């Protein structure tokens, strides 16, 4: 153990180098861990083993990437460039070793984590849904700077590497194996054996084929490909607001195939991008998300069954999302047709998210259409998502409350009715809490956790914990009109409506907002949310 790495040598003369960052639930790359890695590699090299396997001791994953907080501290390019160059040097070390190296990957292996894995000669991924590999740097306004642009293009070919880096999306183990990002995807029980096999009888390392690896990177081809990719990119992310992917394309077009220049380009470009407003703000958003995650403590509450009343778009999608996240869900509505449509949407969600037919069926089995409300007494969390009418909601609660389990949370998805007014008539008003989801539920990570004057502290903590159990970000807010999001949003929408009334054409208003960087104009947004709902919220 040298701080963050553990070195073990086995009977077959293989070294198992275990990354176990001290005082952290996940492995991150920062100056300390990287120097510690360097030291470990030097030590191992001197003992001349037959091979080296690099793995992680963290149950959550291999490595979660560069330490954003540390990077943020190195904002000045004069510090950043040397830092990146030093990382390049450390990550080139495994390549220079006389014996084979393999990264044994499980869970998250993203950003700098994947760049570290790419520095090994081989990669093995654990075959299960938790394993995700990706280079999501563009989502933070930068691009891979720890040699990723060099090694990804060399390993999986120019186009696939660009696709991975430009989109920032992550791949499962099987998909990563298919494109050659990992050499093998095997179940956990075979992970060690597979590593031994690669190290004891090392095959030729994976390289992209002639078409993908060579032709696509030829100097005359690159400008053409870059042009095509640029046009496709422009449809999704305007260059004024998202400079990073364009910078990456430019970097690739200029330097592809020449490692020394690429390393140099990475250092200067990534250091420059880190100082842009976009990167600073995206990193800030990332940190804020991390902070919101910290607001819900999963260990406080272990929900197993969620009962949702109201199978409209919100209720149905909340139910489907909870089932996707592994909870048992019963979905109640007076209209069987609405439940039917919700089940259909859920089936679509499970198909796209899970793919595997066994997992899809298990998710469908967890989601029970429940027109008669059998699930009420079994629920740990009861979410009401019926139409916005205080009297109807109160009448529903009067029916539900006597049947609920004593410890269960009663949550409302209301966006506009004060909780105090809904709590009237409840025997235990202290367990009413707001869980305000946004549409579409599967894409909007934020959930406003609304409390009234009556709401109990532990109820609030449990509601936030529940949000974390279903992988949403809890934002605690007071039950004041519009809560937080609509409070911010509505003046903006109302101003748009005022302009509309003054005679400014709707497309002009929306155009201006989109040019400013909004994903959608205010008029279109108001229409998508529903004018009735906007009106209710505005009141």
């Amino acid at each position: 153990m040298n701080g963050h790495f553990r070195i073990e040598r086995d009977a077959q003369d293989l070294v198992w180098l275990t990354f176990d960052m001290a005082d952290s639930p996940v492995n991150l790359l920062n100056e300390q861990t990287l120097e510690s890695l360097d030291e470990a590699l030097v030590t191992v090299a001197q003992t001349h083993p037959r091979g080296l396997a690099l793995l992680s001791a963290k149950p959550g994953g291999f490595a979660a990437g560069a330490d954003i907080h540390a990077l943020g501290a190195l904002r000045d390019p004069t510090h950043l460039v040397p830092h990146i160059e030093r990382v390049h040097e450390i990550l080139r070390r495994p390549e220079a070793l006389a014996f084979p190296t393999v990264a044994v990957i499980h869970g998250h292996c993203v950003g700098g984590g994947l760049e570290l894995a790419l520095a090994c000669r081989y990669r093995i991924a654990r075959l299960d849904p938790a394993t995700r590999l990706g280079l999501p740097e563009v989502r933070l306004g930068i691009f891979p700077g720890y040699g990723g642009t060099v090694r990804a293009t060399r390993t999986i070919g120019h186009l696939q590497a660009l696709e991975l880096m430009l989109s920032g999306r992550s791949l499962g183990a099987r998909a990563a194996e298919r494109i050659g990002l990992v050499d093998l995807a095997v179940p956990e029980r075979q992970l060690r054996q597979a590593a031994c096999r690669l190290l004891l009888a090392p095959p030729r390392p994976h390289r992209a084929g002639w078409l993908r690896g060579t032709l696509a990177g030829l100097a005359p081809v690159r400008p053409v490909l870059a042009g095509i990719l640029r046009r496709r990119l422009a449809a999704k992310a305007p260059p004024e607001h998202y400079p990073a992917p364009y910078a990456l394309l430019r970097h690739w077009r200029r330097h592809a195939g020449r490692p020394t220049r690429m390393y140099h380009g990475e250092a200067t470009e990534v250091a420059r991008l880190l100082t842009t407003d976009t990167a600073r703000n995206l990193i800030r958003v990332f940190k804020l998300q991390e902070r919101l995650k910290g607001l819900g403590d999963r260990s406080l509450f272990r929900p197993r069954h969620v009962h949702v009343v109201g199978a409209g778009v919100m209720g149905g999608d909340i139910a489907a999302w909870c089932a996707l996240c592994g909870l048992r869900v019963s979905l109640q509505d007076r209209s069987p047709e609405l439940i039917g449509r919700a089940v259909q949407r859920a089936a679509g969600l499970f198909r796209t998210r899970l793919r595997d037919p066994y997992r899809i069926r298990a998710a469908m089995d967890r989601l029970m259409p429940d027109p008669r409300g059998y699930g009420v007494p079994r629920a740990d969390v009861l979410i009401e998502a019926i139409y916005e009418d205080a009297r109807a909601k109160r009448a529903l609660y009067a029916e539900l409350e006597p049947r609920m389990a004593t410890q269960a949370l009663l949550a409302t998805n209301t966006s506009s009715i004060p909780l105090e007014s809904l709590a009237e008539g409840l025997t235990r008003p202290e367990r009413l809490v707001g869980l305000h989801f946004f549409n579409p539920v599967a894409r909007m990570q934020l959930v406003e956790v609304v409390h009234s004057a009556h709401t109990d502290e532990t109820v609030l903590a449990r509601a936030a914990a529940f949000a974390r159990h279903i992988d949403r970000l809890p934002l605690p807010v007071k039950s004041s009109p519009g809560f937080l999001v609509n409070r911010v949003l509505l003046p903006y929408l109302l101003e748009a409506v005022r302009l509309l009334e003054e005679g400014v054409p709707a497309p002009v208003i929306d155009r201006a907002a989109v040019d400013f960087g909004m994903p959608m104009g205010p008029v279109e947004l108001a229409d998508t949310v529903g004018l009735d709902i906007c009106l209710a919220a505005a009141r």
Partner: protein
Amino acid sequence: MNLPHSGSLPGRPVYVVDGARTPFLKVRRGPGPFHAADLAHAAGRALLTRLPLPVEAIDQVILGCVSPGPDEANIARVVALRLGCDPRTPALTVQRNCASGMQALESAALDIATGRAELVLAGGTEAMSHHPVLLNEAMVAWLALWNAARGPLARGRTLVRLRPNQLRPVIALLRGLTDPLVGLSMGQTAEVLATEFGVSRQAMDAFALRSHQHLATALAAGRLDEVEPLYDHNGQVYTQDDGLRPDTTAEQLARLRPAFDRPVGRVSAGNSAQVTDGAALLVLASERAVEEHRLPVLGRIVDAQWAGVAPQRMGLGPVHAMAPLLRRHGLASTDIDYWEINEAFAAQVLACLSAWTDERYCRQTLGLDAAFGPIAQERLNVDGGAIALGHPVGASGARIVLHLLHTLRQHRARRGVAALCIGGGQGGAMLVEHTQTP
């Protein structure tokens, strides 16, 4: 003739806590939206969710199913795990042809009576629309040759040996409804009884009409609350049995051509049970389990009886099973408040009713001293039967017992008998009692 005594339940009383079934969905064109395990899972999920009972408390799962799908080996186990039962809870699938669902209940009842289990989830399921279509044997033999053939020449030689008749499929559903020993289809065995007991086409059609009318009335009166809706992945909702024709008439039924003995037979598609997908599940419990979990009680399974008859007369099976059951308990026809005799064929049920009161048949064939008194029409299949709602072979036995218990409760009556005829020449009967407390 000695009365077989094997059916008497030894030991502790057995209670039916509750039960649920899916709507019965008529087989129309090709495979239906649900496999047999999906049907049983849907019924079981609603049932287990509404009971004040942790799923882990179930000691055993027993399902009847005549023909589970290729991905449903030991379908009871598949369903148990999909329902979230403890992996340590054993499950078995039973098969007694058309009485598989009743067999599951009897096996479950025995487990409880003998003290081997406290709580058993039992019932039946069948997706007849998913019964397999198989390659015929000549084709299987040819495929074996094809797999053994090496090289293009051998393959070519094998290819020319392929004959068109080898492509003719084997429809497992039709083979299953044909007696494997005497070669009669089930409909033809009904024709045998119709001839023997002089059941007219008019009588059959009148009985079929009655089945549809009774089911329609029961549905309108909300007497089928054991039915839990089904939802498919395309958003379609199935809330009730879809084989019902509430507006069918005697004239319409009379126009249907004979379906089995063509062209002169009397048994038509209209006076036979429909081919249907469906499942029915019940929770059976000991007194201890009822008290421990404060469970509701729907009734008690008192006894059951199985009997064998000639395969050609399989339709008389209910008579042969009910007679020893009633004799053993010293009961006359009038002691039974309600009857459910599964309507495989109108001809077969009517033949049973004739044999039951036929002095000669009871003396000579059943070895009794005298015939039974008549089974009153207003006490038999009061909410319709398989002719109107279908006969998913693995599920019907569980359905009629469940519905009989509901009927007894609704009419504040006490005793009921449910019986079925069984392809291959058997009969099964179950004696139940309504009670609300152990």
